[in-house]
């Protein structure tokens, strides 16, 4: 009997031995002034993910340069995947395509049919663990001509049916919380982690929905989410607040000046 137990433990060893740390950001909104404070909080994780709305901020009239800067910072830091979100769509299809073509990590849009270099899923292999990552968006995206946004649940079901074998499933979602809760409750395969963006909410604790932990790390670089995952699921979740976050850059003057010029002399 003792030998059988020992044998079972040895055979099960690789399954219970692993642990993956995941760090994530949500709704960065091209907040370059806080990148230096975010980097040390993210860099030590096995996997770095983003919940979307990273490359654009209409409140500050960010331009193409800030979108490029943010993407390149994410690439240098070693982000493993992000979900395309509504503010990425505000960049317009031409600029967005240009940035996506240069992005070295997968940008996920499981439920978007568009002529863009985005992916339905990413399969990451970390410490021998195969991590399947899907990313869906919904609220407030601009659907440009020729694009089609399909129901997130339908897209997830179709993608999971064709996805490669995996040990861990992480879902990135960019939508309001009520829609995310409904989605989590209906998932055909429970994910170990549901990283949610859009509401800019700081979740001190995961929001549990039928065994699915939904987490969110606020907006504009105020915090980083930190998670330890094992074969049994979520082991630990922390929200690491950025100490003394740098102030956001002031509103640029040139759009107001350009607007004045545009309006000058009109009747």
């Amino acid at each position, binding site marked *: 009997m003792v030998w059988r137990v020992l044998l079972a433990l040895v055979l099960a060893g690789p399954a219970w031995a692993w642990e993956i740390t995941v760090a994530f950001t949500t709704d960065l909104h091209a907040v370059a002034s806080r990148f230096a404070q975010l980097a040390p909080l993210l860099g030590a994780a096995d996997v770095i993910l983003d919940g979307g709305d990273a490359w654009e901020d209409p409140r500050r009239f960010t331009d193409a340069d800030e979108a490029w800067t943010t993407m390149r910072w994410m690439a240098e830091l070693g982000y493993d995947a992000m979900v395309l979100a509504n503010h990425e769509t505000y960049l317009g299809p*031409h600029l967005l395509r240009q940035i996506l073509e240069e992005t070295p990590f997968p940008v996920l849009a499981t439920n978007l049919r568009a002529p863009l270099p985005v992916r339905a899923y990413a399969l990451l292999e970390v410490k021998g663990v195969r991590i399947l990552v899907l990313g869906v968006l919904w609220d407030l995206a601009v659907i440009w001509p020729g694009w089609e946004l399909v129901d997130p649940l339908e897209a997830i079901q179709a993608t999971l049916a064709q996805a490669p074998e995996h040990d861990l499933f992480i879902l990135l979602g960019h939508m309001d919380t009520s829609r995310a809760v409904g989605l989590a409750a209906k998932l055909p395969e429970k994910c170990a982690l549901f990283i949610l963006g859009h509401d800019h909410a700081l979740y001190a604790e995961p929001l549990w929905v039928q065994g699915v932990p939904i987490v969110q790390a606020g907006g504009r670089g105020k915090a980083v989410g930190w998670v330890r995952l094992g074969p049994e699921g979520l082991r630990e979740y922390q929200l690491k607040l950025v100490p003394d976050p740098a102030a956001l850059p002031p509103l640029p003057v040139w759009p107001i000046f350009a607007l004045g010029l545009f309006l000058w002399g*009109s009747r």
Partner: protein
Amino acid sequence: MELAVFLFALADLPVAMAGAGEAVLGPAPWAVLPLGPVQVFAGFTDPPLALRVHFLRGPWFSWLDFPPPRLALGRSPGHALVALVREGSTLYLSWEIMGSPWLSLFGSLGGENTLGLRFRWRKFWAGGVIRQGGLSLWCGVYF
């Protein structure tokens, strides 16, 4: 401004800002052909041909239509598209609000005051425009 030209110039911001191609059927059929940073308008209207040259292609959008010279400056401030369009000294505010992936409300203010509704399904759309007290119905396909 003739009806088809109005639709091209002020009431089709998704196509204008995306620089996309489109064929439209309605009271005055017309089409837009995208050639890199240029869009070519052709229709049974006056003028029958027009060009649109794009200068900024996101997140600020700017383009010049001619003839006549008509300059636009746009942005997507949230799930809406907005552009200021200037033709001579006349100013227009063109807008489209995406209510959902399938439905949007659009219109213009200023030199033209109009309101329209557009239903979208994949690459197709159908809609109506109320302009100068009359309703016209249109449908189109993006390419």
